[in-house]
């Protein structure tokens, strides 16, 4: 294995800046790794070899001309296939957008390019980000590099698998109910869902507008912070984007510490359905935090028990409206247009062929939940629960600086195991959903391997809105302590591919 692919993003950026490595060398090393392993992992839906090398050459040329380089210049990145990329296919893991070449770059894509980050390609995902295993991709599942028969989490399983398989040092995910954090947890990587509104949604194909949030994925807390700083910030093209300075996340990641911090543990985040090994590693993490000087506070957030139900009304409702635009008129798939059928028939046939079962299920759920006569009972009640959850968070953050929990109740399950049981699948997001409903920020980072199956366990850290820096301060401290304890980063324990 080439040593380049083992480097962190921070290291690569430094070496490219100093001239020790060229961006082209770095890019070629990662493309070679993709060639070697992605047939097995299937993290990528589209590898943009030419585009990536062109970008890398431009970075090297800029350096030679003595121009100032972006903070992550020459660092390769795997982009979730939910962000539009001008001239490069964007499918959202769906057949309905097969063949669509977006005419515009998402704001996030633009920011990455402006920062001289090299985009290797687009990663696999559950169709329209609906799922927790990447099995709902219309283009086949992704394997977990720890065990290719296991799921890499979802919806952003492609991004987390690319990191764990050393196909890229950085990746982008989106998190509507846990789609950054849960994949990070089950692959032994780091993923952050920033505060809602921190990262522009312009050009990010919508699943549930009021919950969706793009964020950084990496193998280290510092790398995630460096990427966070590049992608976050106000965007006038997104009305829900926050017009305020980005919290000092990089500074926090470089100065990890929990000394004197109050850390909350929520009573509702354990119990039935939690794997013993997950609870064990979580409890050890809490002990570690204590050792590192944190004060642990027990919290009661009764509304969190209602979060999953509220989420499965709000997200489908919004998606039923967001996905209505896929009508075969202007872009993407068109089925049955043989000159004899009406526009409505063509739309129906296209949707029948182009949407997978989970997408159809949620569109139907949402359409029903929004219908007159049911709106108050379903969508209306769910919005009330959302308010209650925000209040529980507000009350909690009066007592603590951050909250910790397991990221997901179990380690990676086998591909196919929950495919026919949507409810079992939905439970994977039990601990992550409350944060999306309240709009605050959270991180998942590795806290060990579950003794029973040897698979990674994620620790979730939750901070108030626009206090994303706390995630990195605590995350960096925990990461340093664990790495010292283990003697190496946890990914070293993954079997080689």
């Amino acid at each position, binding site marked *: 294995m080439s040593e380049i692919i083992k480097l962190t993003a921070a290291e690569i950026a430094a070496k490219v800046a100093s001239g020790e490595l060229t961006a082209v060398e770095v890019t070629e090393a990662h493309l070679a790794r993709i060639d070697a392993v992605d047939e097995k992992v299937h993290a990528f839906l589209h590898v943009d070899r030419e585009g990536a090398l062109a970008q890398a050459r431009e970075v090297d040329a800029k350096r030679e001309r003595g121009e100032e380089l972006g903070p992550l210049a020459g660092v390769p990145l795997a982009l979730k296939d939910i*962000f*539009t990329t001008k001239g490069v296919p*964007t499918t*959202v893991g769906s057949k309905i*957008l097969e063949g*669509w070449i*977006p*005419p*515009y770059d*998402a704001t996030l894509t633009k920011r990455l390019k402006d920062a001289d980050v090299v985009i290797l390609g687009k990663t696999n995902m559950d169709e329209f980000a609906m799922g927790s295993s990447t099995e709902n991709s219309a283009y086949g599942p992704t394997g977990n590099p720890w065990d290719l028969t296991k799921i890499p989490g979802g919806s952003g399983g492609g991004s987390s698998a690319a990191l764990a398989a050393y196909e890229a040092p950085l990746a982008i995910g989106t998190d509507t109910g846990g789609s950054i954090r849960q994949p990070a947890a089950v692959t032994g990587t780091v993923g952050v869902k920033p505060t809602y509104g921190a990262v522009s*949604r*312009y*050009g*990010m*194909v*919508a699943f*549930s*507008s*009021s919950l969706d949030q793009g964020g950084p994925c990496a193998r280290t807390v510092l790398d995630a912070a460096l990427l966070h700083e590049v992608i976050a910030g106000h965007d*006038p*093209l*997104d*009305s*829900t984007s926050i017009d305020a300075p980005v919290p000092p996340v990089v500074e926090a990641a470089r100065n990890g510490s929990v000394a004197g911090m109050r850390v909350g543990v929520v009573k509702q985040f354990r119990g039935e359905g939690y794997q013993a090994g997950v609870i064990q590693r979580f409890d050890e993490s809490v002990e570690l935090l204590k050792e590192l000087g944190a004060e642990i506070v027990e919290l009661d957030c009764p509304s969190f028990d209602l979060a999953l139900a509220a989420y499965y009304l709000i997200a489908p*409702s*919004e998606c*039923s*409206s967001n996905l*209505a*635009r*896929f*009508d075969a*008129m*202007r*872009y993407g798939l068109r089925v049955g247009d043989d000159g004899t059928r009406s*526009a*409505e028939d063509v*739309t129906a046939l296209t949707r029948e062929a182009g949407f997978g079962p989970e997408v159809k299920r949620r569109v139907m759920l949402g*359409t029903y939940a*929004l*219908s*007159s006569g049911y*709106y108050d009972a379903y*969508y209306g009640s769910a919005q009330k629960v959302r308010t209650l959850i925000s209040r529980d968070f507000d009350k909690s953050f009066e007592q603590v600086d951050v909250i910790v929990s397991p990221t997901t109740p179990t380690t990676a399950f086998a591909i196919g195991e929950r495919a026919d049981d949507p409810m079992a699948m939905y439970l994977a997001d039990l601990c992550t959903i409350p944060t999306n409903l309240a709009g605050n920020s959270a991180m998942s980072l590795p806290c060990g391997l579950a003794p029973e199956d040897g698979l990674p366990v994620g620790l979730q850290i939750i901070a108030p809105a626009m206090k994303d820096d706390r995630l990195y301060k605590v995350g960096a401290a925990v990461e340093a302590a664990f790495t010292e304890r283990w003697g190496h980063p946890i990914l070293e324990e993954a079997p080689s591919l």
Partner: protein
Amino acid sequence: MTVTELVSYEEALATFEPVMGLEVHVELGTKTKMFCGCSTELGAEPNSQTCPTCLGMPGSLPVVNAVGVESAVKIGLALNCEIAEWCRFARKNYFYPDMPKNFQTSQYDEPIAFNGYLDVQLEDGEVFRVEIERAHMEEDTGKSTHVGGATGRIHGASHSLLDYNRAGIPLIEIVTKPITGAGERAPEVAKAYVAELRELIKALGVSEARMEMGQMRCDVNLSLMPKGAQKFGTRSETKNVNSLRSVERAARFEIQRHAAVLSSGGTILQETRHFHEEDGSTTSGRIKEEAEDYRYFPEPDLVPVAPSREWVEELRAGLPELPRVRRNRLREEWGVSEHDMQSILNAGAVDLIVATIEAGADAASARKWWMGELSRRANEAGTDLAAMEITPEQVARVCALVAEGFLNDKLARQVIEGVLAGEGAPDEVVEKRGLKVVSDEGALGTAVDEAIAANAGIADKIRSGKVAAAGALVGAVMKATRGQADAARVRELILERLGVEG
């Protein structure tokens, strides 16, 4: 199409009381669309004014047009509405091929303006108050052109062409409360309301509100109930009635049609209806068996609109004089009758006359030229008065030339003809055509002397006191000077020469 036997209008009104609801959509005259930066210019190549947002591309997001919100608040204030302190957009979910997102970004239970009224003046001067339910912001859809059918409607067409240039153009929908108590004047009230609203929108400068261009579109909802009843009947919704005259005709037709159906024991279906310009009738569109379910919910891609009270008051203070108030003020200033004012209004001459007066003319002259000679010529040419190739300043100059005695009315008409023909400003036309009244006393004196010499008999009559006979001599002088003399001065000179007191 079912042919309905109508009952006479008088008969209908003898039994029933009409209840109307008017929904007017106004396209705002903003430079850019409601939720993106695309141009709103009319007449561009199809689909040339589009972007990911107004095409509903995956990933695109809306941003509210601040001028659109300001226009909505101004309209709300001018309609005496309350302005919401906080309101949201909502998604109205329904499927239509020319609607890019398959939902319309609109407002539902939180309109930006609500609870207002508009006083409208009927032709005889009576003022009728129309209550306003709400005014809300939304976006227009694209435009379908159905190809291959006989009628241009979708029925029978082989395919449709979609133009999204219109998609996302800001609309304000203004909805009245049920209009009751208008009785037989209901159609007139409907017309007067739409006319007044159009004047108001234009006065606010938020839209040109040209109905023939589709910038203002009206739906006429109408039902009948037996006289004295409290409960409204079932309504029909006549869509896209797009001229003032049509609004009146549609209301009138529906009153007669409803009365016919109800009188013969039938029931009115709640349905949309199409209006036909040719004969003023309406025909059945689509039947609404149950209320359509638009699955409204708050638009999560937009933040709430919260107009500050200070800003609202600032806008209120900056509102122009409302059209009806202005019209009444001008009517008094100009000293014209209600009827004449209505004619001036119908001719579209109010602003032209005001501008002419501002340029120095007196009210009577300004009105005389615009409503007389210029209206006649506009009529002949089949154009709007405002489109005539003469400016209020030029008309004012003609008035001044007449007042100063340089022109008489006959010559003034020739000057106007010259200006309209592109011969230049009034003074240039006078110069080029040699139209000045002959005021050279020497030349005029000679002409008078010649006339007296040539008509000795008449001159004698005048000398003997028959002053009225002077007219014949004046005519002779005018003829000799080809009409360029000031007739009054000619008469003075004749009497002077003949030693008679005028």
